[in-house]
């Protein structure tokens, strides 16, 4: 066992870093001043734009010694964050715990969650800008926001009403800015209408957020705690993303149902969306039947593209699910860590109190303080992890399910066509047989019948073929569009996530530097 020489007690030789401590806290205040704000991080909007054009095959120019330089991971010191950067104030100061009043939970969630929920619309703001830049030139000038969740009613019949605000300059809408109140089942109703119209012709209709009986019951019952406010916020953000995705689809945007949803003040209640209604049960039965059918259909795939794509989506689905599960575990553990750190901070503070040696006591209390602040930061990071990453992943898991659904529809379409062809063949055989058999009296009538049927089935075959071609074409286009969107979405979220990670670490760094500076000063005096 290598015998390590212990540094002599702090009386003579100190580690050189802290030699300047003679001047009190100057060492650290000067470090701190260099951390003063220069222009805050460059507008993220520009980042994806330049990256998309300059497709970084060789990331060499931007890769700053990420492999070799262990000591200084972030060598490019272009970013400096101010000590008093306003958007970070709420984190360092003590936050009001959400004492929620029944009517407007938003305003109280806002100070805490705002910076996070802002990420949702911002993502789509940027991608809209990019859409405008594209050579295709589809100008989408419509902005949707979902806000102000408000509890309406009481007891088990209560529900949350959300305000849907639209800002647009498109001519098909009567006004340029308007808002309506909608409840969750309205969104589900919209989705089911759109799905019934467009899914079977190959359009990827974005899925609506999932129901949650447990979550909603808590809200209904009026349990005003942080988990129910979290739930409402999560749902609000999910609804917003859902609408934004739907609106981005050029075909769906033209749909009158969508327009009615956005514009009209009164909407017929979508009862069929309830899980235990007759329609709900019918849906479940259909789903089961579909699953069985899928197993029995054996399609001769003439187009390798589809097979390839299906495989691709299958893989992607699996991997996203795995990643999602891991990220959820991470979030959970981070919350645990923050709880444990808070508990430890309290213990350390108590220990500091009972210690009768003053300098040591102070040092221990400071340790407790540092730990507490770090705990708060861990909490923030946990929120960031969750909102950005995890939600995106679950959105895409559902979207991919929709994509798979579309592929299945194509298979069904093919099946229909096949069936039509088979029936036509049978009818033709029957006709041929009739030609051979010589029964003059029945012949003419029967012949006419068969003739009619054959014509009917020929038409069906032709229609089937046309449908199949159409759906294949639509799917190709849709998948292309889907892929583009996916790349954009992921990229933006990853960048945002990295930025938040970096910011949290910067905060930790600052706190540590300050605290440790003071601690050393105190220790030195002793």
């Amino acid at each position, binding site marked *: 066992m290598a015998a390590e020489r212990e540094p002599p007690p702090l009386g003579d030789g100190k580690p050189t870093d802290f030699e300047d401590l003679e001047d009190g806290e100057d060492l650290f205040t000067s470090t701190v001043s260099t951390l003063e704000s220069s222009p805050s991080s460059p507008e993220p909007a520009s980042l994806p734009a330049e990256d998309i054009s300059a497709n970084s095959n060789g990331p060499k120019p931007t*890769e700053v010694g990420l492999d070799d330089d262990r000591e200084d991971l972030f060598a490019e010191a272009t970013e*400096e964050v101010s000590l008093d950067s306003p958007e970070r104030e709420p984190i360092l100061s003590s936050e009001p715990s959400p004492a929620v009043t029944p009517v407007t939970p938003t305003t109280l969630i806002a100070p805490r969650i705002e910076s996070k929920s802002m990420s949702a619309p911002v993502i789509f703001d940027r991608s809209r800008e990019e859409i405008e830049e594209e050579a295709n030139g589809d100008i989408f000038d419509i902005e949707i926001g979902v806000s102000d969740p408000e509890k309406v009613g009481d007891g088990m019949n209560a529900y949350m009403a959300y305000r849907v605000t639209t800002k647009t300059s498109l001519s098909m809408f009567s006004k340029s800015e308007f808002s309506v109140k909608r409840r969750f089942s309205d969104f589900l109703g919209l989705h089911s209408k759109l799905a019934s119209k467009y899914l079977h012709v190959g359009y990827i209709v974005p899925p609506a957020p999932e129901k949650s009986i447990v979550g909603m019951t808590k809200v209904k019952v009026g349990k005003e705690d942080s988990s129910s406010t979290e739930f409402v916020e999560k749902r609000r953000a999910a609804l917003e993303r859902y609408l934004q995705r739907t609106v981005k689809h050029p075909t769906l945007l033209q749909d009158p149902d969508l327009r009615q949803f956005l514009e009209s003040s009164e909407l017929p209640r979508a009862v069929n969306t309830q899980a235990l209604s007759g329609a709900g049960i019918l849906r479940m039965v259909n789903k089961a039947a579909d699953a069985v059918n899928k197993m029995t259909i054996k399609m001769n795939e003439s187009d390798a593209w589809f097979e390839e794509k299906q495989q691709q989506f299958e893989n992607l689905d699996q991997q996203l699910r795995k990643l999602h599960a891991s990220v959820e575990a991470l979030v959970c553990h981070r919350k645990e860590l923050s709880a444990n750190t808070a508990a430890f901070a309290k213990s350390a503070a108590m220990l500091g109190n009972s210690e009768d040696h003053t300098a040591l006591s102070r040092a221990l209390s400071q340790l407790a303080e540092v730990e507490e602040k770090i705990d708060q930061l861990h909490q923030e990071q946990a929120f960031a992890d969750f909102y950005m990453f995890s939600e995106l992943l679950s959105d895409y898991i559902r979207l991919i399910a929709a994509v798979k659904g579309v592929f299945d529809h194509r298979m069904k379409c093919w099946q229909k066509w096949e069936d039509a062809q088979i029936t036509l063949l049978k009818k033709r055989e029957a006709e041929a047989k009739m030609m051979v058999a010589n029964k003059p009296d029945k012949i003419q009538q029967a012949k006419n019948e068969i003739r009619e049927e054959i014509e009917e089935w020929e038409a069906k075959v032709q229609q089937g073929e046309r449908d199949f071609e159409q759906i294949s074409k639509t799917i190709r286009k849709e998948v292309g569009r889907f892929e583009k969107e996916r790349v954009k979405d992921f990229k933006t979220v990853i*960048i945002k996530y990295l930025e938040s990670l970096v910011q949290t670490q910067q905060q930790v760094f600052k706190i540590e530097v300050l605290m440790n500076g003071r601690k050393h000063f105190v220790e030195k005096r002793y």
Partner: protein
Amino acid sequence: METHAEAGKEGKPSCASVDLQGDSSLQVEISDAVSERDKVKFTVQTKSCLPHFAQTEFSVVRQHEEFIWLHDAYVENEEYAGLIIPPAPPRPDFEASREKLQKLGEGDSSVTREEFAKMKQELEAEYLAIFKKTVAMHEVFLQRLAAHPTLRRDHNFFVFLEYGQDLSVRGKNRKELLGGFLRNIVKSADEALITGMSGLKEVDDFFEHERTFLLEYHTRIRDACLRADRVMRAHKCLADDYIPISAALSSLGTQEVNQLRTSFLKLAELFERLRKLEGRVASDEDLKLSDMLRYYMRDSQAAKDLLYRRLRALADYENANKALDKARTRNREVRPAESHQQLCCQRFERLSDSAKQELMDFKSRRVSSFRKNLIELAELELKHAKLKGPPGTPSAKAV
């Protein structure tokens, strides 16, 4: 009695030899350790120029049970009642680690080869860390004994250091363990009785203050130690969480053919780095904070034991006084009562003197050890914070 050297006495477990302030007449260290099936064998090496050792340098192989035997021998020795006996080292416990390694070995098909390799590496590192710590604990125990002017002269200690053969000390069987347990209960009951005893006045303010302080301190440090352990374990959990995440991200990245490829791969890399950092933070906290808290928890218990012994001696003294008075009134057996009372008095005074010295040493030892560890912890945290860091988001730009 020689005065102890405060500055040199370090109570924190470490692999370094304790600075004996110029007294190198007896140096003990654990030069090697081997972990077998379910026991650890320590090679204790002694360098000494003291006359009653046969050689100047020699080593023996000892097991954990023999350390415990030595500790118990000190505790039971009446001569050392006035001293703080260094706490016994904890039993080497590799159970948890071994279980995890076994579970990993059983295999999980959903885990990729890289993930498996990383997890195995982590577990091996954990095993190694536990091993190092147990060696350090045993070493510090011996070194404190060697540094203490009175304790180092114990005959059992010499036997422990020198006797080449196995000391044939078996581990406590169940009856002895139960006996020990009962003894503890009796002790605390006794203590409660004594303190409640009427007429027993604490004559010395110093001891009164120490007693209150130690009681409170011990509870609080035990609390802090438990919670520090939890924090450390949570950090470790977090670090382990990053493994499947970065594996999933790299596989996603390799499958992509578009711009997302670099993003995913970079993110995977970042998480890998974060994992290593978190792991390092966890182990630093473990060594500098948790271990130290744990050690002083045990040490403060030893100090409490000392106070109890003194209190017991005081009670005995009081009782002897009462007996003497009774004997005098009855005018029977005065002599034996007198001599008994004198014995008790002497014993009490002896204990009080040495206890005072010991407690002051305990305090200075504690303070210097805390200071050293907190400073080192702060430095390490700063280093990590710099790595995680500050200014610049080149990784975001690179993405």
